[in-house]
């Protein structure tokens, strides 16, 4: 819809964009469902799944450790100066561990993977679309969703929870670094608090979130790349648009989903 038309009739425009958004979400959901079911089609594509786990998971380890470590450190620092006012620095371990496991771990891991892997997925599949490689798959009677999307879905579902766990562990160690090593909090107290305050339900909640985020990220990023040719812009510009909207849309939806999930899980 053109901007002029939208300004003339804002109500019509609002309705138009809402319907388009809902339709897109429906298409993405069906796209994901097909890709997910095809994971189990025979013969299993184990090699391709392993390659994608290496790309999405293994290659993200460094960046996850880095962001996890600094997030934990900053949480330790901020938490300490807040708690010291109330004389309750002893609960720093609980504060850092719970905020990481319940909230920051899954969300920040998802956002880091979107930046590293999601954008690459959209661009890679987008380029395959504009250079007719996806058409070539169809002419060879190879289902492009099974060939390209299913291994990525399987790999994301496996990698996201593991990366989240790693983020949490490194983050807790980061909090220990600032809280105990730099600011002198008793290390025993820090880890005892971590141990006593974190319940299994918090860990499960964090994993549920990371699984939901995996579904959101992989389906949006693959979908945007897969349908690059339906955009108004063609060629390289189309791919750049797909990559941008894949990153923006999946970040926004991860945050919205996070809120919704937190409401249910608390």
């Amino acid at each position: 819809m053109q901007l002029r038309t939208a300004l003339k009739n804002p109500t019509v425009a609002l309705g138009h964009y809402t319907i388009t958004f809902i339709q897109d979400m429906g298409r993405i959901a069906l796209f994901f469902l097909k890709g997910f079911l095809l994971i189990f089609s025979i013969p299993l594509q184990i090699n391709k799944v392993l390659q994608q786990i290496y790309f999405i998971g293994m290659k993200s380890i460094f960046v996850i450790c880095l962001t996890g470590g600094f997030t934990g450190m900053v949480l330790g620092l901020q938490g300490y100066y807040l708690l010291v006012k109330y004389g309750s620095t002893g609960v720093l371990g609980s504060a850092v561990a719970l905020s990481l496991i319940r909230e920051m771990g899954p969300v920040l891991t998802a956002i880091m993977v979107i930046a590293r892997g999601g954008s690459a997925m959209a661009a890679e599949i987008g380029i395959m679309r504009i250079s007719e490689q996806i058409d070539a798959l169809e002419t060879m009677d190879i289902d492009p969703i099974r060939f390209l999307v299913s291994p990525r879905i399987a790999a994301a579902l496996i990698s996201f929870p593991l990366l989240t766990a790693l983020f949490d562990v490194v983050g807790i160690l980061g909090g220990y670094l600032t809280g105990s090593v730099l600011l002198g909090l008793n290390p025993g107290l820090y880890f005892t608090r971590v141990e006593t305050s974190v319940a299994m339900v918090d860990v499960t909640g964090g994993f549920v979130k990371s699984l939901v985020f995996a579904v959101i990220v992989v389906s949006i990023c693959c979908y945007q790349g897969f349908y690059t040719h339906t955009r108004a812009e063609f060629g390289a510009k189309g791919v750049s648009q797909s990559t941008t909207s894949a990153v923006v849309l999946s970040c926004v939806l991860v945050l919205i989903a996070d809120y919704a999930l937190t409401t249910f899980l608390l």
Partner: protein
Amino acid sequence: MDQPLIQIKNATKNFADVRVLDGVNLSIYRGQITSIIGQSGTGKSVLLKHIIGLLQPDSGQVLFDGRSLGAMKKDERKALKRKFSYVFQDTALFDFLNVAENVALPLVENANHNEAKVKEQVQAKLNQLDLYEIEHKYPAQLSGGMKKRVALARALVTDPEIVLFDEPTTGLDPIRKTAVHSMISDYQQRFGFTGIIVSHEIPDVFFISQRVAMLDEGQIRFEGTPEELQQTTDPVVRNFIRGLESPHDELTGVASQSLGQKRLARELFRLQHHSRPFSIVLLTVENLEDVDRIAGHVAGQKALRNFASFVKQNVYITDTCFRYDMNKIMVVLPDTDAGQARQFCDKLSRNLDTDAILSGAETRKRLCFAVAAGIAQAQKDSQIETLLTDVGKQQNIFWECQI
């Protein structure tokens, strides 16, 4: 004529506001090669994509053996799809797979494959296309011509029944271009597949096609045999063909077929009105296919080029030699009777340098290069067609050489 294998009925296709196909009617017959020609941007590739089902017509139908895809069961559709193969204009090779993996993909993904057998098939196909020691290279590391040949190898590796070629020779040098044409024709004769070629290579593509269709302004303007195309009176078709035809054959450097035909007509006129005799000699490389099979298609085309160049060196400036078919060169000898034409042939056979002709065929196997010559002297009441038929009948192998 039999029932067409593929029939396109009144197909239309619009992209946004542009009507690309505007009621296309076309029949493709089993076991034949059909060329689709036309100006750039007239929708030839779009038409090809309708045949393989990558695009659906807005209205009209594409029928296979008289049945539309919609009327088939899922299994039947799948079985039909497996009979097809498609060579894309821009190759569409998978840039994350190496050459061997690219060519093997249709085999690996679709059948209960045996790894060793797949490897063997892939290697055989690559060798047939003169692609050696590039199995581990990625498409980005190959030249344009090589990519084209890898794409051809990938399309032919499954031994398909129907092959669609979207400009398979664009960007190739004359030798490789004709090598690809001869390979398509050779494979078609050996395996009997049905081929559909979108091409701008006029007249080369006519040598290998049994039917030609011209697409113009979204409709089929002409449909028929290459001979019918040459004789058509439709000004649009004639202008298009003339515009693309070069006066010289790209591979051999001798005159093109249309220029040769004109020369024949002129000589006939001189004979009828000024009583100047003339003869024609048709030189046919009888076993070009064997050379192709033993030494490769590129070597075969090089041998043909060397032979044409040898003939050109042995004719007078007033004579005309032109490419008459894939493996045929015709020489028009003005002011010459049949006896003198025979002397000309004897001179050719005496001067022939075997090594020079087969210099491109680097093979240890024994190779034979057999040329047949037919001679015909024109009479006042001769027609070009009868003259050409006569010269074709009187062929005797008159030299053979081996290395």
